[in-house]
């Protein structure tokens, strides 16, 4: 008989356009460091609970200015409230930084693949963050702390440019006091008041991995730092399938249609941002991708 045309589609009724944001109410804005702030958001229209998994992101819209991809940095066990921790680097992140409590912004999502918490169950969890890369890992920490019995040791390695730039510095101290949790911080440039680690975050890996066969590592930070992290983790006995990375590229749609976030064969918005290392190894080692 005849071939089916256009996948045998039928006209749809009016559906929400996937590119049209929802209005969210800004509950609070708080300064984390000199250039990083956190927005706490709530949807204004009543609808089914907004849920997310650690590692997912939203597209945040500043009125008339534009949109950008921002990870969810808040507690995954709390519904209908999302936190976003944002570094001012340009137009949209700059504009969003000047909103006030009570204002509205546009939100799409959540999108993307989460950190594989099921793979982390019963294992040591090692988190490695560079700078703002701590933001998408914070929900992992909260999830581990809320379900402590599901995981073994939690180790957080965090690197920042200078002591003032350490993201979630107070929380890192609080988390460190929890049983089975360790956190280490390092800075690229120290001043005289700093008596902690100096150097890139990947140097901390050596002294950290205890049981390589039973460890899972989640890494987020600048691409060059992630390449070094992978090398260090492999040197310490972790397999390619025990390392997960969260990648970043320009994003315009977050739904796999605009083509901007391509990373070789992968669409970071759709197939990522969280990837198991062996899936993207080939591409991560190409220049100017």
């Amino acid at each position, binding site marked *: 008989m005849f071939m089916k045309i256009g996948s045998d589609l*039928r006209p749809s009724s009016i559906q929400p356009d996937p590119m049209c944001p929802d209005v969210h109410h800004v509950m609070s804005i708080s300064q984390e460091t000199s250039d990083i702030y956190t927005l706490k958001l709530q949807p204004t229209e009543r609808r089914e609970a907004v849920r997310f998994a650690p590692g997912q992101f939203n597209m945040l819209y500043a009125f008339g200015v*534009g949109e950008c991809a921002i990870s969810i940095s808040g507690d995954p066990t709390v519904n209908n409230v999302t936190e976003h921790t944002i570094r001012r680097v340009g137009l949209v992140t700059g504009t969003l930084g000047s909103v006030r409590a009570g204002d509205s912004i546009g939100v799409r999502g959540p999108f993307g693949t989460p950190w594989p918490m099921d793979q982390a169950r019963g294992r040591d969890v090692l988190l490695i963050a560079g700078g703002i890369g701590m933001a998408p890992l914070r929900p992992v920490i909260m999830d581990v702390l809320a379900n402590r019995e599901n995981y073994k040791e939690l180790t957080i390695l965090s690197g920042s440019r200078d002591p003032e730039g350490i993201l979630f510095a107070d929380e890192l101290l609080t988390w460190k006091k929890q049983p089975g949790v360790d956190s280490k911080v390092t800075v690229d440039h120290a001043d005289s008041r700093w008596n902690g680690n100096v150097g890139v975050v990947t140097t901390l890996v050596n002294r950290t991995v205890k049981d390589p066969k039973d460890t899972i590592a989640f890494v987020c930070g600048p691409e060059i730092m992630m390449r070094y992290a992978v090398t260090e983790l492999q040197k310490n006995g972790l397999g390619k399938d025990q390392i997960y990375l969260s990648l970043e590229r320009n994003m315009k749609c977050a739904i796999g249609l605009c083509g*901007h976030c391509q990373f070789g064969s992968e669409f970071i918005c759709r197939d990522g941002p969280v990837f198991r290392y062996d899936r993207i190894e080939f591409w991560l080692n190409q220049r100017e991708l």
Partner: protein
Amino acid sequence: MHDADSIVVERQDFAGLFEILRSLGYAVVGPTVKDQAIVYDQLSQVDDLPIGWTDEQEAGHYRLRRRNDAALFGYAVGPHSWKKFLHPPRLRLFQAERSEDGAMVFKQEPVEAPKYAFLGVRSCEAHAIAIQDRVFLEGAVADPTYRERRIGALLIAVNCGFPSSTCFCHSMKTGPGISQNTKVDIELTELLDDEGHRFVFQARSQKGQTIVDRLPARRTTRGDLDAAEALVAEATETMTRELNAEGVRDLLYANLEHPRWDEVADRCLTCANCTMVCPTCFCTTVEDVTDITGDHAERWRRWDSCFTLDFSHMPGGSSRQTSKSRYRQWLTHKLATWHDQFGTSGCVGCGRCISWCPVGIDLTEEIQVMGQSTQGVPSS
């Protein structure tokens, strides 16, 4: 190809097709001569078609030429493709208002979906549409505008008799004849010989059948079917450009640092012409704007190209700084990563990017050169 169910419509009755399509509420779009090229636009009558015209194409070259007959479809593909109708170059996505208290309201744009009849779809183009179907309809999220327009569209395909020198659809297995499993509604072949000027029509969908049934026609003879087959066979014969589609994905993955990329980058102007004319290229960007009061905002989507520096903009700088990296992105996407992403090649061999490249870069040549001096096997 046609079978025994096909019918023949004489040239003087061809206008009947327009009447039937109009009575069914279709907006007929198809090839027409404009600005010294055959482009796709609204057609109101047979005379709007490029009657008696053909094209002469080479790398970086496109010219119209007079034919010595009055054929309606005696040319290959021009700078336009059907994507301009299914995936419009510019589209408003939403409007938003902000009131004094800071509250925001989003007004989603209603999907505008004219009911199009595409007259003169070539086999390579039907394949290109099927490829865009995979991109826009078969992923996790469908594009609403593409979806509505695609459902309504009627594809009237024409078997190719006069490929241009830049065509290589035969290598890509997308033409020049329309195969049984190509998704179209009607297949037609234009015949112009001693037996007269006539068209073999064949319904290829239920929708197409209702139209074909209404055409003033006679049954096909063996002679008509043989002539139609010979036309396509001859078209295949005349095709000179080739691309080894079988091995190209692995070839590219093994040669991402081949010196040829530097060589092509020296010639490439990163003008983005190739991506604009390509019937499968789908990338878009968005533009957010406000009016002078600042309280009315709109978002527009428009075609974008991986050849621009801004395409890969990141706060620390674009990830593809050099034209080498951008040409490599384009070509590896078309011929290699597309397979991984969508289970199909991203190239149908229509040759547009060759003809419309101002410096005449020819992807078939690039692949050939790389194949002759391959770097090695993929490292993964």
